[in-house]
C-alpha cells in the first residue's frame, strides 16, 4: 500500500505533461494505465478535463452594436487620398451646370447650327461622364468610387468608354466593395458581347470570396455558357473557399 502511494506521488510529477499534451500517444496510454490505481490523481484529471470542457464551450460575448464606429472612421480617414481632389458632388454639380448651359445654348441657336450644337453637346456630356467616372475611380475613397459606379447606372445607352472604366474597376480596384459594385453595374449591359467576355475573364483573377460569389451569380443569371470553364476550375481547386466552390457547382448545374 505504501509503495502504491509512493508510486502515485511520483506519477503526480508527470501529471502536467499528461494533461497538457507533453507525452506521446504511447506514453500517455501507459501513464493512463498507471494512474488507474491512484484515485486522487484520477479525480484531478477528471476535474481538469471537466473544466477544459466548460472553457471550450464558452461562446463569448458578442461585440455590442455601434462599437465599430471609431475604427471605421479611422479607416476611412486613412484610405482617403492625401492630395487635393474635387469631391464627387462638386464634379457632378459641374456636369449639371454644363448640361443646363448646353441645353440653353442649343435652345437659342437657330437653323443649321442647332444639329451641330446638339451633337457637340452630346459629345461634351459623354466626355464629362467619362471624366467623372475616371476621376471617381482613381482619386477618391472607396465610398466615393462606389457612388461613381452607381452614377453609371443612370445611363440608358451603353457607352464603350464607360464600360472600359467599369471593367478596369472590376479587375483592378483595391476595394472588393467597389469591384462588386462594378460587376453589378456591368450586368446591366450584359447584351454587349465585350461585357459578357470581361465578366467571364474577371472570374480568373478574383481572389475575394464575396466578389467571386457575386460574379458567379451574375454569370448564372445571364446564362453565360462561357463561364463553365472558370466555374469548373473553381470547383476543382481545393484552396478556394468552400462556399465559393459550392456556388460554382450550382452554376455548373444550371449552365450545363
Amino acid at each position: 500500500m505504501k509503495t502504491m502511494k509512493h508510486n502515485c506521488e511520483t506519477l503526480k510529477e508527470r501529471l502536467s505533461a499528461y494533461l497538457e499534451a507533453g507525452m506521446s500517444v504511447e506514453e500517455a496510454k501507459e501513464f493512463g494505465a498507471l494512474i488507474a490505481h491512484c484515485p486522487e490523481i484520477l479525480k484531478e484529471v477528471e476535474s481538469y478535463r471537466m473544466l477544459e470542457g466548460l472553457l471550450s464551450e464558452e461562446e463569448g460575448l458578442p461585440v455590442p452594436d455601434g462599437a465599430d464606429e471609431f475604427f471605421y472612421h479611422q479607416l476611412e480617414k486613412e484610405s482617403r487620398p492625401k492630395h487635393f481632389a474635387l469631391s464627387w458632388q462638386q464634379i457632378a454639380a459641374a456636369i449639371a451646370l454644363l448640361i443646363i448651359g448646353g441645353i440653353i445654348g442649343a435652345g437659342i441657336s437657330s437653323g443649321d447650327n442647332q444639329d451641330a450644337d446638339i451633337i457637340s453637346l452630346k459629345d461634351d456630356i459623354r466626355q464629362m461622364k467619362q471624366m467623372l467616372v475616371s476621376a471617381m475611380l482613381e482619386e477618391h475613397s472607396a465610398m466615393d468610387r462606389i457612388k461613381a459606379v452607381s452614377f453609371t447606372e443612370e445611363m440608358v445607352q451603353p457607352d464603350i468608354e464607360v464600360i472600359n472604366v467599369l471593367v478596369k474597376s472590376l479587375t483592378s480596384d483595391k476595394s472588393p466593395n467597389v469591384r462588386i459594385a462594378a460587376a453589378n453595374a456591368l450586368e446591366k449591359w450584359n447584351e454587349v458581347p465585350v461585357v459578357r467576355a470581361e465578366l467571364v475573364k474577371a472570374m480568373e483573377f478574383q481572389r475575394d470570396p464575396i466578389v467571386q460569389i457575386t460574379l458567379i451569380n451574375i454569370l448564372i443569371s445571364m446564362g453565360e455558357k462561357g463561364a463553365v470553364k472558370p466555374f469548373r476550375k473553381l470547383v476543382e481547386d481545393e484552396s478556394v473557399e468552400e462556399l465559393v466552390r459550392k456556388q460554382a457547382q450550382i452554376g455548373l448545374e444550371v449552365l450545363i
Partner: protein
Amino acid sequence: MEFLTDEKIMMDVKLGDTNRLSMLYEKHKKRFYNYFVKLTNDTEVSQDLLQNLFVRILKYKKSYQQQQPFLPWSYRIARNLVYDWSKKRSPLNVVLEVEKVADQVVDDGEAQQKADREEQLRKAIARLPAEKSELIFWTKIEGMKYEDVANIKDTTVGAIKVQVHRAMAQLKTLYFENNEA
C-alpha cells in the same frame, strides 16, 4: 488560385489597400473583444481596446512582415494595450468591473444553468492574474496552438505547457471554491 489568408490580406493592407483591414476586423473582432473582456473584466473598456487595437494595426502596418502569422502579431499589440490600460486603472475597480460583465449574462430560463456556470467560470478567471487568464483564453477557449502562444510570448512550447498547467490548477481551485461556497 491563391487562398485568401489573414497574412495575405494583411500584406495587402501593408502595401496600401487599407480598406481590406475591415475584412480582418470583421473576422476577428469577437475574438479580440472577448480577449479584452477576459483581461479587463469590463465590456466598455474592451470596446475601446478593440477599436484601439485595429487603429494601431493600421498605424503600424508597415512593421508587419511577410508570412508573419497575423494572430500572434496582433495579440502582441493587444497585450501592450492591456498593459498600458492596467497601468492607468485603479485596483479598487476590480470587483465592480466583474459585476458589470456578469450583468451581461442573459437570464432566459433554459439557458440559465449554462449561464450560471459560465458566470462562475468568468468570475474565477477574473480572479486570476492577467498572465494566467490570457493563457487560458488562448489555449482553452480559443484553442490556439501552443506554438502560436509561445510565439506571442516569445518563449518555448515546453514553458507554455507548464504555465498553462499552473494556470489551470489555480483556475480549478478558484472555480470549485466558488461552486462549493
